[in-house]
Structure formats: C-alpha cells, structure tokens
C-alpha cells in the first residue's frame, strides 16, 4: 500500500487514503444531491399549478421533509467534508489526515444512515413527514411509526460528522508542515477548523434532541409533552441551539472556498486575511447566541425577543466585512472569468442578497409577516443553494484539474453556469414575492392568487435541475476524456501548497513535509 492504491473494490472499502476518502465523500454527496434534487422536482411539479395533480398532501409533506434532510445532511455537509479530506492535507503539507482509520469509518457509516432514511419511503406509514425541523409534538405523539428509523439515521449522521470534525481538528492542529503557523494557513483550512469546532459543539445537541424524542415516543418520558410537565417549546430551543450553528457549519467552508477562488482569478492576494479569520470566528461565536430568532412567533417575552433581534442584527457586521473583503480583492486586480470565478462572483452577489433578506428576517416585528412564509424559503435557498452549492460547484471546477490531471470543458462549464444562475434566480426570486403576498411554506396546495409566481418558480426549478445533469456530464467527461494537464499550477494566479505538487496529485503527497517560509 505504500506506493499506490490497492486494486478492486477493496481499495474503496478499506482505504485510509485521504484522497480516496475525499473522492468517495464527493461522489456520495453528489448522489444525495441528485436524490434531494429529485424530491425538489416532485415538489415543484406538484406546485406548478393549484390543485393536487401528481401526489397527495401526506406524500408532499414527506417530500419536503426528505428534501431538507437529504440536502442538508446528505448533500451539502458531506460535500464539504469531501473537499476537506482532499484539500486540507495538501494545503498544510501533511501526508494524510491525522486519524486515517477513523476517516474510513466516518465515511462508510453515512451510506447506511441514508439507506435507513430512504427505506422509510417504502414502509407503511411513509417517510418522515414533519419537516426537517421536526417540531414536537408533530414528530413525537403524532409521528408516523417510521420515526425511529429517522432518529437512528440522525444518530449515525451525527456520529459521522463528529468523527470527521475530530479528524480535521487533529490534522490541522498537529500535522501542519514546519513553518506553517496558524496565521499562515489558507482560508479554507481556517474556515474548516472553526466549522469543525462548531460541529463538535452542536451535533451532540442534535443527538440529544432526537434521543429525548426517542424516549418520549418509546419510553414514556415527557421532555416535550406538556401533559407530563414537559414543553413542546423546549424542543424548538434545543433544535435551534443546534440548528443555527448548523447553517454556519454549512456556509463557513463555502466562504473558505470563495476566498481561494477570487484571489486566484483576480491575480491579487486576498484582501484582509486576518480580518477574514476574525470575522469567521465572530460569526461562529454569534451563532450560539441567536438561535431563538427562528422562534419569534412562539410567544417569547418582549425582552427575549428584543435581545435575539439585536444579537442577530450584529451578525451583519462580520458578514458584511467578508463581502467587502472579497470586493476589495477584485478591485484593481487583473480579472478573468473562468467557470470557477463565475460561480464565485455569483456566490458573492446572491449570498449578499440572501444576507439582506436575512437582515430583514432578523427584524422581529416584520418577521410577523415573513415567518414561515415563502420569503423564508427564498432567503435560505439564496444562502444554501447560491451559497453552499454554488461554492461547492466552483470548488469542483477549480480543483478538478489538480485531482484528475485533466481539464474540464470551459465552454460547457460556462454554459452550465449561466443555466444554473438563470434557473436559480427564476426559481427563487419569485418566492420572495409569494411569501410577502402571504403564501406559507410547506403548502401542498395554494390559493389562486399565488398561481402565477408558483408556475414561474417551477419552470426555473426544472431549468436549474437540468443544469446539474450538465454539471455531472461535464465532470465525468473530464475524468474520462478531458484534455490532460500536467503543470503543477493549473491557474496562473493560484497560490498554496496544493499547487506545488504534481498534476494529477499523486496518491501520496508530502511524505516529507515541505518547508514553509
């Protein structure tokens, strides 16, 4: 095993190589992305016109729930863990991850978790139907009988994430090449280090929440049942204590990716490196003290409501600093627009729009009208899709030549970008209007005045969905038949240790640590 990969299926089952595991994470997450995307297509097809055409309301609820769970836990999070596996050792000059056997385990339990979750679709009672936020008592007393599979699946996902995070922290803290001080680390490594700490802090809280559910359902406790002295609102506090850091877990590594791509194609170093690090850390800190802004309607005392409003508004400051830094990096650079850069620029624009709507949502009095409406759906898709998914796509285009030694088709990449960008905005921009006009989220059917924008949104969703198939085609074509490249540095302006090794990256890199000055 010292020189090259083993042959056959054993290579993948027993591998402890960070590149193999990274590859498996990325393919797994893409498969989940297609599955979650398929659920989204079912949802948008049903909402194409008022009335129930394709599915029934109870199945619609299963679709929205599974879409959310699969996208958050199956697609986005593993995608960034995959990128971390591939890139962090190469970026810090380490030969592999710190705990390679645990790395193998943390990947291989994931397919089981999702197989368990997906199998509920075919069981009596159906898949989870209580939304990805699974508020009690809808998810406890009133849950379908398959809820125990869901709980077990969440436990496995949590274990996988925690192991992955421990591995990343150990790698970053213990395995950096000599001379690579913390404040010399690439931004992607920084954002992941902070994310990993967030994960270790909050994934156990999610595990606690589902364990309490499990006990309420099966063992007669009443954590969330008012009859026995519990409180359904407690569930929401516990869930969002996990849930709000969770959304930053998703977006922080995306910030890291963008902080690599924009300097490369601006041919200019990242503006404000240290302020980027501090901004990331303060966003992570603030994420712990704002959770109840998801609960402005549950009936909090006005003091609590004001506190959570002010604290949430504060997040705008470090986030804005990041956007200003990216724009300043581009300012007076020497810009070219290859596919990764197009996705990165779209990220900055669309994420900023998502940030604006986030600020609006933070305003507790106007949240009376936004809360649980399509305005929220539009907001979080602007930050999750245009944020996390766009940056993930950008990352794949950016590092793919390094990974497989072949160049993707630039024209096809640009076409895919424009279809994605246009499709995305047609899908989600009208959802702001729907929400403001009064359409609640998670509605299987709607009143007639919402017909027009829903139809447009659905058309956009089909366009956006199709663009992902083009993405898959482009990636597979590149791996099979892309133009070979062998320069260590694929991009003129690229900086960092990963661009000093051979292309394609050999199976083992940095067996002797490089010297960082």
């Amino acid at each position: 095993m010292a020189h090259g990969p083993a042959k056959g299926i054993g290579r993948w089952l027993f591998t402890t190589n960070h590149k193999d595991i990274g590859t498996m994470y990325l393919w797994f997450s893409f498969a989940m992305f297609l599955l979650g995307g398929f659920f989204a297509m079912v949802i948008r097809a049903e909402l194409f016109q008022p009335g129930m055409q394709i599915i029934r309301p109870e199945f619609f609820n299963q679709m929205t729930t599974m879409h959310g769970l699969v996208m958050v836990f199956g697609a986005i999070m593993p995608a960034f863990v995959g990128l971390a596996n591939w890139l962090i050792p190469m970026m810090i000059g380490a030969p592999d991850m710190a705990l390679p056997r645990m790395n193998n385990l943390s990947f291989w339990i994931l397919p089981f978790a999702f197989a368990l979750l997906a199998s509920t679709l075919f069981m009596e009672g159906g898949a989870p139907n209580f939304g990805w936020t699974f508020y009690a008592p809808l998810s406890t007393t009133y849950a379908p009988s398959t809820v125990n599979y869901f709980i077990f699946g969440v436990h496995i996902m949590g274990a996988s994430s925690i192991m992955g995070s421990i591995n990343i922290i150990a790698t970053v803290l213990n395995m950096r090449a000599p001379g690579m001080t913390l404040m010399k680390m690439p931004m992607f490594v920084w954002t992941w280090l902070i994310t990993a700490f967030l994960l270790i802090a909050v994934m156990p809280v999610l595990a606690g929440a589902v364990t309490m559910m499990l006990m309420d359902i099966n063992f007669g406790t009443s954590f969330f049942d008012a009859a026995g002295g519990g409180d359904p609102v407690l569930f929401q506090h516990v869930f969002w204590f996990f849930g709000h850091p969770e959304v930053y877990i998703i977006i922080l590594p995306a910030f890291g990716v963008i902080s690599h791509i924009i300097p490369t194609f601006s041919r200019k170093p990242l503006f404000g490196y240290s302020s980027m690090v501090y901004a990331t850390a303060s966003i992570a800190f603030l994420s712990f003290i704002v959770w109840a802004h998801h609960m402005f309607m549950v009936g909090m005392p006005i003091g609590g409501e004001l506190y959570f409003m002010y604290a949430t508004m504060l997040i705008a400051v470090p986030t804005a600093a990041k956007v200003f830094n990216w724009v300043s990096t581009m300012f007076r650079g020497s810009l070219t627009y290859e596919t990764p850069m197009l996705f990165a620029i779209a990220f900055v624009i669309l994420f900023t729009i998502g940030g604006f709507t986030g600020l609006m949502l933070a305003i507790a009095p106007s949240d009376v009208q936004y809360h649980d409406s399509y305005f929220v759906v539009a907001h979080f898709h602007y930050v999750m899709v245009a944020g996390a998914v766009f940056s993930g796509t950008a990352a794949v285009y950016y590092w793919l030549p390094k990974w497989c030694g072949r160049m993707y088709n630039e024209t096809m990449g640009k076409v895919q970008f424009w279809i994605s960008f246009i499709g995305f905005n047609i899908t989600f921009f009208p959802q702001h209007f729907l929400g403001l006009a009064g359409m609640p989220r998670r509605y299987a059917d709607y009143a007639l005045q919402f017909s027009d924008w829903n139809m447009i949104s659905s058309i956009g969703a089909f366009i956006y969905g199709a663009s992902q198939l083009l993405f898959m085609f482009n990636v597979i074509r590149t791996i099979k038949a892309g133009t070979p490249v062998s320069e260590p540095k694929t991009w003129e302006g690229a900086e960092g240790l990963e661009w000093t090794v051979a292309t394609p990256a050999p199976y083992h890199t940095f067996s002797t640590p490089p010297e960082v000055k």
Partner: protein
Amino acid sequence: MSRRARMLFALVLAPVMSLASMGQALAEDAQRWAVNMPKGVTPVSNAIYDIHMIIFWICVVIGIGVFGVMFYSMYAHRKSRGAVAANFHENTTAEIVWTVIPALLLIVMAIPATSALLSVYDTAEAEMDIKITGYQWKWQYEYLGEDVAYMSELTTPEEEIYNTAPKSQYYLQEVSQALVLPAKTKVRFLITAKDVIHSWWVPDLGVKKDAIPGLVNETWAYIEEPGIYRGECAELCGKGHAFMPIVINVLEKEEYNAWLGKKKAEVAAVRELAKKTFTLDELMAQGEIAYNRSCAACHQINGEGIPGVFPGMVGSAITVGDVKGHLDIVVNGKSGTAMQAFGGQLSEVDLAAIITYERNAWGNATGDLVQPIDVLKFKQGQ
C-alpha cells in the same frame, strides 16, 4: 406543422393558456402578481409595513454601493483589457470604516424596529377576547364570556382540489363559518392548540402567532376597515396544513352586535333541535355533508382511510360493531392518536348523522339509526 412540433407548441402554450384562464377567474383580483406585503388594516400591520420598507430601501442602497464597486472592477479591471493587478491586501482605515458604518446603520434600523415590536406586544386594554384553538385541520373560535363557540373548516370541495371541477374564486380560502369581528374595536386573541403546533396568520391584520398545545399565547388587532380578510395556518401541522384557512368577516359595530344576538339564538335553536327525531334518509344526507367536512380529511371520502396512518371504516370493528363503542370513539376520541373528541366540536345532530352515515355508507349496511337524543344521553353518561 409536424406532430412533434405541434406537441412541443402545446407544451409551451399550455401554461400560458392556463394562466390566461386563471386570469379570468381572478380578473377583479388585484392580488395577482403581487410582489410586496399588504399594508393591512390595523395600526400594527401598518407599522410592520413601514419598517419593512425602511429596511428594504436601506438594503437596496447598500446593494447598489457594493455591487456598483464590484461591477465596476469586473468591467474596468479585466485582464483582457490589460489590467495589471495591484498588490495591496490590507487597509486598516477601510476595514474600520466598513465595520463602523454597518454598525451605525444597524442602530438606525433597531430604533423603529423596537418601537414597532412594542406595539405588536401591546395587548393591554382590549375590549373583547376571542379564544382561537387550532385543530388538525380547522380552527375553533370562542367568544369568551358570550357562550358562543364554533368550528371554522375549509369548504372547498374535494373535486376542486383534485381538479375534477373548476376552481372557484376563493379556492382554499373559504370556510364553513368565518370569524366575525367588530371594526374599530381592540380585540385580543388568545391562541392555543389541541394537538400539534399551528400558527394563526392573517397578513392584513399583521397578526401571526403560534398555537401551541398546553400554552396560551396572546396577540391583538384593531381593525379599521370592515371587510373580509383571509389568512392561513403557517406552521406545518400534518397533511391538512394547507387546508385550514382563516376567514374573518369584519362588520361595523352595530351590525356585529346584531350578528352576535342572532348567533346566540341559533345556538339555543341547535340545542332544541337535538330533541327531534330524524329519519334514516335525513340523517344519511346530513351525515354525508358532515362526514366529508369533519372526517374525510383523515378517513377519506370513500371511508378507506390511509393504511398505516388513519384506519379505514369499511366493515371495521367500530363501524359495524357495538353502537356504544362507536359513540364512544366519536364523542370522546382516542388518547394518543389523531382521533379527536368530537363531542365538544360538533352538534348532537351532526354527531348522530355522522355515526348513522358511517354505519350505513360504503356497504356498512347495519341499518342502525342513531338519533341526536341518543348522543345527548350518551354524553350525559346514561
């Protein structure tokens, strides 16, 4: 035109055509293509609208500034235009400025937001109280201190939802009995739920509040304009989440008082009606209406339920078994399941009609006849 071209043409045209036909149904409705929130008819909804617009315009101005600089450098600093990259990567002054300016803007936003929030919370000195209870999937309105309470359920027929009949103008926004309120009166809403969490949202009133089992929330409205206002349940509450609308009919004060008087008389009349004896046909006819309104959401119109979730009623042990057991489950519900206690929700006539209907429809030919008086006696423990 070739067949394939025609099909393609039809495919593209179909949405456009259906938009046009929907347009006719909504010709008078200004809400089509709405892009912003309603200003509403209460002081709170107006305050919310104002703060929403303030924040919106601040965001637009910031957006123009940030994207302006960005688009300028995207255009002017292109490599293809011969731009040579500068090498600066720090500027402490700039970084301080763009931390301080957003912070100041936030303070500017926080001031009106705080005062708007204070008015949202100001439930004191209300002139009347309405208790709102969320059920799977309907609302109950109770005029506290007046002994008037009724359920408000969706009346849009199944045929419209499943596209076998054309959709009417207020598709999914019409209910059996609207909540009737007086104009220019401070009304306090006490909001709770029976089973799972719901959320009572009426955009025109600027009111949204979660209805949580075991907890009573409060909010309020002072409605300036008489009229009909429509809202929705905003918190996922199961399969009927999209099918429990809110309709409020706001009357001038005198009209409201007249309505309330009439309503009280009606309540007494319904109680009287419970003593009458009905024929099987009468009960079956009434039963079908009441069943489809109150039971079919779970047990389905055809009585077959949803396997594994909601039990079927065709030839089941309850519907063809002992009448007492049937009465018990309908009137008292079943703990730990979604089966509610309908004894307090429906009149004796409706309960008797539903039970009779269930025992004789879909081939359950028991021939049993349950009279309202039987239900009343059962309720009184006889």
